[in-house]
């Protein structure tokens, strides 16, 4: 215990670690003040847009004449617009009344209808929200499809929600939803790299005073494991440092509820996929579990490399594991099944949890359960390796 305390103390007065913590804090504050407010969801609550569409289609339906020569596009429109406009009408009325539950119900119907119509559109004239079709986006249609169904799923939950609804919840601007969004973009990389940089020198620093530390009365393996625990605690502190930013966003946009839906996608061929939800609380718990495994993996690798190669620079190369995925998980191809047994495939934890990763790669191989097992096994193997190496080398650090 004393050794743990001593290592913790050294860890938290380490100049490099303090700098890292400070940088992380500054970056998170920068994010919550400058970047988070500029977030503009593609599927926003936009009364003007709904109204414009509704009026335009209404006018069209009222003025159109059907003759023999009527273009089949027009006929198609006459067929599908009435029901579609019904939903828009309901949405407008709900917004007018300020009944967000009713709005959510109608919006869910709207999106489901839109997806169905676009899917069955025989002339390929219907399109998703134009915001997906930006220059250079080769997957605009897929993005639209996913986001429409995603939106429909979560609006379905809002419709029956017993927590307070407001526009911030609908547009996913609350603190919890912002956190979730971050967890599905760059944050996992930042957390993992921070963990690496924090633990980078945890073994190597002892080389500067070997006579002092080599004599501590415990087995080298135990000492290494305790060091790992210290690094793990330190890495968790880096998560705690995100709390101020979380609080600020929460005070501004509301915190959201742990019952909020976190939509997951289940792969099936031919657009027969299903969308389900778990609660935000469950999502965060699962996320934490996998992040912990990742931290353990990275720290384990640092420990292993430290006793094998004894160099801080080499430890930095471990950072590569965060980016290996990029070279083989490319949108546009179905990756080979065996790649899903690599721990590196699970670096984008959020996208694995929600199934978005599977969606973009047209596969069902990357499940959270498999990811958990693969990472757990890797951690165990790394730990065993450390044990073997220490026994073999009669380690002196």
């Amino acid at each position, binding site marked *: 215990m004393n050794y743990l305390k001593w290592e913790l103390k050294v860890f938290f007065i380490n*100049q*490099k670690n303090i*700098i*890292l913590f400070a*940088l992380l804090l500054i970056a998170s504050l920068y994010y919550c003040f400058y970047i988070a407010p500029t977030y503009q969801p593609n599927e926003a609550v936009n009364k003007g847009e709904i109204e414009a569409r509704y009026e335009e289609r209404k006018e069209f339906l009222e003025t159109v004449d059907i003759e023999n020569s009527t273009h089949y596009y027009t006929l198609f429109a006459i067929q599908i617009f009435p029901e579609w406009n019904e939903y828009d009408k309901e949405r407008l009325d709900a917004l007018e009344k300020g009944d967000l539950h009713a709005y959510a119900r109608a919006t869910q119907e709207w999106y489901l209808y839109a997806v169905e119509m676009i899917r069955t559109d025989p002339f390929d004239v219907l*399109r998703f929200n*134009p915001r*997906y*079709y*930006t*220059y*250079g*986006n*080769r997957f*605009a*249609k897929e993005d639209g499809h996913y986001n429409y169904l995603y939106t429909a799923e979560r609006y379905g939950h809002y419709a029956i929600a017993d927590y307070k609804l407001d526009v911030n919840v609908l547009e996913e601007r609350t603190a919890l939803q912002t956190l979730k969004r971050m967890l599905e973009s760059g944050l996992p990389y930042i957390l993992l790299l921070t963990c690496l940089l924090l633990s980078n020198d945890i073994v190597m620093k002892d080389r500067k005073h070997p006579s002092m530390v080599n004599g501590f009365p415990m087995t080298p393996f135990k000492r290494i494991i305790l060091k790992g625990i210290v690094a793990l605690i330190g890495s968790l502190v880096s998560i705690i440092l995100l709390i101020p930013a979380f609080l600020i966003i929460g005070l501004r946009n509301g915190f959201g509820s742990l019952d909020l839906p976190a939509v997951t996608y289940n792969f099936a061929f031919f657009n027969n996929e299903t969308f389900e939800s778990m609660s935000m609380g469950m999502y965060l718990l699962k996320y934490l579990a996998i992040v912990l495994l990742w931290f353990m993996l990275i720290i384990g690798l640092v420990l292993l490399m430290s006793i094998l*190669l*004894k*160099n801080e*620079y*080499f430890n*930095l*190369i471990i950072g*590569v594991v965060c980016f*290996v995925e*990029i*070279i*083989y*998980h*490319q*949108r*546009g*191809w179905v*990756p080979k099944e065996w790649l899903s047994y690599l721990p590196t495939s699970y670096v984008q934890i959020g996208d694995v949890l929600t199934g978005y990763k599977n969606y973009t790669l047209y596969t069902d191989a990357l499940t959270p359960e498999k990811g958990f097992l693969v990472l757990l096994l890797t951690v165990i193997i790394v730990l065993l390796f450390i044990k073997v190496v220490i026994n073999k080398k009669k380690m002196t650090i």
Partner: protein
Amino acid sequence: MFTLMKTIFIVERKNIKFKSILSLIILFIIGSFIYLENSQFRELEPATAAEVVAKNAALDLYKKTDATDPEVASAIYRNLNLQSTKLALRSLGLITKDDSIYIQGAIELTQVRNEIYTMNGFNEVAQYMPTYRQNRLDQVFYMAIQDQNKELLVDNSNFPTYIILFLFVLGYSWYLLVGIFSSDILLEEENHQSLVKGYPFTMATKLLAKICSYLIFIIGLLFFTFFITILIASIMYDIDLTYPVAIFNGDYFTIAIWEYIGISFIYFICLSLTALTISIVLNYYVKNLYIITFVHFILFFIMQLLPATGKWLWFMPFNYFNFSTLINGQTAESAGNQMIRLSNGFIILVTTFIVMLLFIYWQFYLSQIRHSNKLNRGGGKA
């Protein structure tokens, strides 16, 4: 000085730092080939399809009207419709596997597009278009292909595409790599002071020897990296050193791929020199390896975080640390200053290097001479 470099070599030869940087490079080379195999990087079919979709989305913003009638249709709408026909030409070229149709369509498309950037209401369709810079790069590229009778590279398993990818990634990371690698260039000696301090050489010689040895290693590393990648790429794909690459240097034009390789090689050396001298100065003032590394990172990312600084401070070296975004004009575009260009990059990096060198000379050499002169006079009196 030569003996000193030999000594540095003895000391550093077994330094794992060097091995780790080498293994990183090797990992990078392997990764780049796997990446290219799996990615749609610079593949024409998906790119063209995406362009069609984006253009259609832009057209959807306007009510369908007669595009040929200037009375009814706005200029931008007419331009978009014109783009449609040119894009169709490109798609046709791909379907019929006829390079010349595609190239013709591509050139005409870029010409039509060039006009849209100044039209009223362009901002509304901006996100469905390439930027002016991207369009101009495309233009000069396809014109060069047409002039030189080069074949169109439809998929990406070929030498020029690999080299472009490889230099893009390396150009992005080279400054940081050298910066991190040299961030303890003098600190390392602090652990061996009593050994090193008494060497019978002047500080200037010592520093020069340090810089030279690091430079030799870095150039060696560059040679190794370039040689290996070019070798593997030319075995895997057919080597073609004359294929044009579009670049920005105040103006948009193409150069042959061998020139591109040569320019990047020399530029990387200039970058290395600058990074080395910055490391030395940082080492002099800051004694913490990690802080020095962070400073390098900050210097590198200033341009990305605050692109507006480049508008007024275009002559500052940090605008030129990212080779990839410099040579394709992205830096100039985001900073809004055309002065941030390759040739200025060379001049400014070399100037920075010389200024830093003079500064180091002043710091380590002249200041000490002054000190000892003063001392001498004081000592004489006593």
